[in-house]
């Protein structure tokens, strides 16, 4: 990973290589080290260094972009030339905004030296621990240990200059028996905050509890969704509802409903990079400072995230949620936080006469953007709750449910939040949720 001085020097060199009216350089450098394992044995690994240097130029009101996976002078010069050639090939764009100037950024401290320096022998030791913990319960451990250091640098010809370095450590364990699967993943910017034995023990507990699953006929029933399951549902709200473009194009359930109650009054959703569990740079893909944005407050629709272009169309200011420009997706919330309640998962179970406890959701996908109707499978521990206790493990179920409607039938919200990833990517800080009448629509054989 490039240090600040070197990254800044390389970015400014690239800025000078492009002879244009306006130029922006976004340089991301990344060092990733990971080990995957199955049945306690390492199966894949990698020590990978990567650069992405993107040059965006404007000349005579036309914009072009090119990128190089290298910081070498020849590659950068070639990228600058391709960007200029692209700009010259297109007609002027009257809607083009000038690039932003210098800004002040709120610092975010999410770089840990011990994560950046984490070694393969240390990863091997964690995997050995996970295998041992699983073996003690007659389970097999699979998973992945990943550490990563990323630096992002953005500079432009109007004086914008920002740099941020962060780290990420993630340890995931799947504990398998012949007829069950338990899973746990913990992600933090500081590897010292990961306890491999605790991660493995949590996965093994679920794996052991899940043995000899029974069938539960699919139907509407109360559900207790653990945080990883909640993250997988919230992913679709992030990509389909809380960005300005979704509202402009009529696809968001928030269209025409700002200021109205749209979800249960206990539901509050924000985008907040500065939540201590989130990881990332305090600026967006066009160099604007990231801001905390209230999306739903007490169940009432409050707003969406903007980039500079959408903000200009709506007569407001950027919230610092631009992806690297230009892009087709529009601004997106990439650090969602779901407000916490005051219950533990155990209390949610105790308060349920009949329910299904879902540990994790697999391969969910969107059917209808306006209602956020999503279908997906349960995974890694699904349990029948009877009379306030886990009664028995059940075979996995498919759900087909509107997230908008489900978040209007909330029974309880968890008090503890965790950082969880969605199947299709993205980080979410979320608690557990209990929801009434969740629609399970079919089942599978394991």
């Amino acid at each position: 990973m490039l240090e600040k001085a070197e990254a800044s020097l390389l970015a400014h060199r690239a800025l000078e290589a492009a002879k244009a009216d306006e130029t922006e350089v976004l340089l991301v450098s990344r060092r990733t080290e990971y080990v995957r394992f199955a049945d306690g044995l390492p199966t894949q690994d990698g020590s990978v260094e990567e650069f992405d240097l993107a040059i965006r130029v404007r000349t005579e009101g036309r914009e072009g972009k090119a990128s190089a996976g290298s910081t070498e002078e020849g590659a950068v010069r070639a990228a600058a030339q391709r960007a200029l050639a692209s700009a010259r090939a297109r007609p002027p764009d009257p809607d083009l905004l000038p690039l932003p100037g210098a800004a002040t950024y709120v610092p975010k401290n999410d770089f840990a030296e011990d994560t950046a320096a984490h070694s393969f022998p240390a990863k091997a030791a964690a995997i050995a621990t996970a295998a041992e913990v699983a073996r003690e319960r007659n389970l097999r451990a699979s998973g992945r240990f990943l550490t990563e250091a990323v630096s992002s640098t953005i500079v432009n010809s109007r004086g914008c200059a920002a740099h941020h370095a962060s780290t990420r450590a993630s340890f995931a364990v799947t504990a398998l028996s012949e007829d069950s699967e338990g899973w746990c993943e913990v992600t933090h910017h500081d590897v010292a905050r990961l306890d491999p034995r605790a991660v493995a023990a949590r996965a093994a507990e679920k794996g052991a509890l899940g043995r000899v699953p029974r069938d539960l006929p699919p139907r509407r029933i109360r559900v207790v969704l653990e945080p990883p399951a909640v993250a997988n549902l919230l992913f679709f709200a992030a990509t389909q509802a809380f960005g300005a473009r979704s509202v402009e194009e009529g696809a968001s359930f928030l269209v025409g409903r700002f200021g109205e109650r749209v979800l249960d009054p206990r539901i509050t959703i924000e985008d907040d990079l500065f939540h201590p569990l989130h990881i990332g740079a305090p600026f967006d893909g066009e160099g604007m400072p990231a801001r905390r944005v209230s999306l739903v407050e007490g169940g009432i629709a409050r707003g969406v995230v903007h980039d500079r272009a959408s903000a200009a169309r709506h007569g407001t200011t950027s919230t610092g949620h631009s992806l690297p420009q230009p892009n087709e997706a529009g601004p997106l919330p990439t650090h969602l936080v779901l407000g916490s309640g005051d219950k533990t998962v155990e209390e949610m179970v105790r308060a349920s006469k009949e329910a299904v406890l879902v540990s994790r959701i697999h391969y969910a996908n969107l059917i209808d953007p306006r209602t956020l109707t999503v279908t997906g499978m349960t995974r890694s521990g699904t349990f029948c709750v009877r009379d306030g206790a886990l009664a028995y493990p059940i075979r996995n179920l498919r759900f087909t449910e509107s997230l908008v409607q489900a978040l209007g039938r909330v029974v309880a919200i968890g008090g503890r939040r965790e950082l969880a990833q969605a199947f299709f990517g993205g980080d979410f800080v979320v608690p557990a949720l209990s929801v009434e009448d969740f629609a399970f629509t079919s089942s599978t054989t394991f």
Partner: protein
Amino acid sequence: MEPRELAACGLDEARARGASYAEVRVVRSEAQNLGVRNGAIATLESPASEGFSVRVLREGAWGFAASPRSTREAVVGAAGRAVAAADALSRLRGERRIELAPNPPQVARWEGPCGRDPFGVSLEEKLDLLRRCDAGLRTRPEVVAASCTMSFLREHSWYANSEGAFLEQRFVRSGAGLLARAAGHGDVQTRSYPMSFGGQFVQGGYEAVEALDLPAHVKRTRDEAVALLEAPPCPAGVRDLILGSSQVALQLHESCGHPCELDRVLGAEVDLAGGSFLTPDKLGRFRYGSDLVTIVADSVSPGGLATFGFDHEGVPAGRWPLVEKGMLTGYLTNRETARAIGEDASRGAARAHGWASFPIIRMVNISLEPGTWDLDALVASTEDGILCDTVKSWSIDQMRLNFQFTTEVGWEIKGGKIGRLLKNPTYQGTTPEFWASCDAIASRRHFVLWGIPQCGKGNPMQIAEVSHGAAPARFRGIRFVGP
């Protein structure tokens, strides 16, 4: 350093540090992505990438390192890191060492087809085509978003291993597509041409874009998106299902391609993507589908996105059945998994995304052998059914059994005649029962090799480009999920 020199240097260093096997891949790529959305040029970018990876075996464990710096210092460093990683991890493997199926080393060059070089076609010409289509899609007020895209990729790679292989391969990939999103009546509906995921992609040049004749399909794409707003939802119930060829392609991808990946079958992907119900004890014995169902894997089909001379372990391209007359007969393998199940050689399905990724088992081109039916006759012989086309939503469990798919569009079939348009047709099934219900497949005249450039797998995620050949097919007694 030039690729041959870089590779030699990496192999020498790896061997000197104690690797029992080593390979170096060098990849240079250049892409061009163009998109016009709602009258504006939303995407106009030219990414380029160059880098290399070193993969080694030491004491029966893999080590892998990659770098974008094509220097002696970088390749020596990467070889050292790869060996050190393998060394650290070998202690976990103990006596359970990774072994590779034999693969005679070859020295060869391979190049894919390319008629009109897409990078030689002016940006003006490409943007003009996209802008015309975008304008045409937005001529009805209900269309709130139009997106017209093109994408081109040129890749040049070199592969060398410590067994003596040296391979050089080049290909060009081209593709384009249209999308119209309409809003009204409290609903949002989308139509794509010629399929979702950005359109149709093939290994080839700009002639592939010209063959799509995008302007000729603007009106229908736009009008169907608008018509869906007022169409009734597809009702729940059990009916016969006719799938358009691009939806059969998705069905092949999710319910045959992925579960036939032998790394999944053997548990190497269980941490994220999952496992497979097609366990080795089923090979040659398991009825996967009806007698009509023969599914072939190949890396040789002209135009296929997974067509190559050699995979990323240097194994030559080939063609083999995964399912023959309904019975499971094969897997997608690499050298490690082929050895693990006692096969003589890998089928050649090891592929890595770019230069920075560890090669894993990826689908090659997975195709359903066409049948004998004319599509009109297929519809005419269906009493009560729904014709569904174009992927909208897809979800399948981690063993690849229970799936639920929604298509962009459906047409009711009553008494052998196409009837009203239906929105959000959603069908649900279980893989072997679904394929067992296949009672008719359209003929080669209706067969299309669909290219999908974004199949995700691995952890960290890798993207692979794959193709699926399919003709429309009928499935009896399928459960439709209502609104």
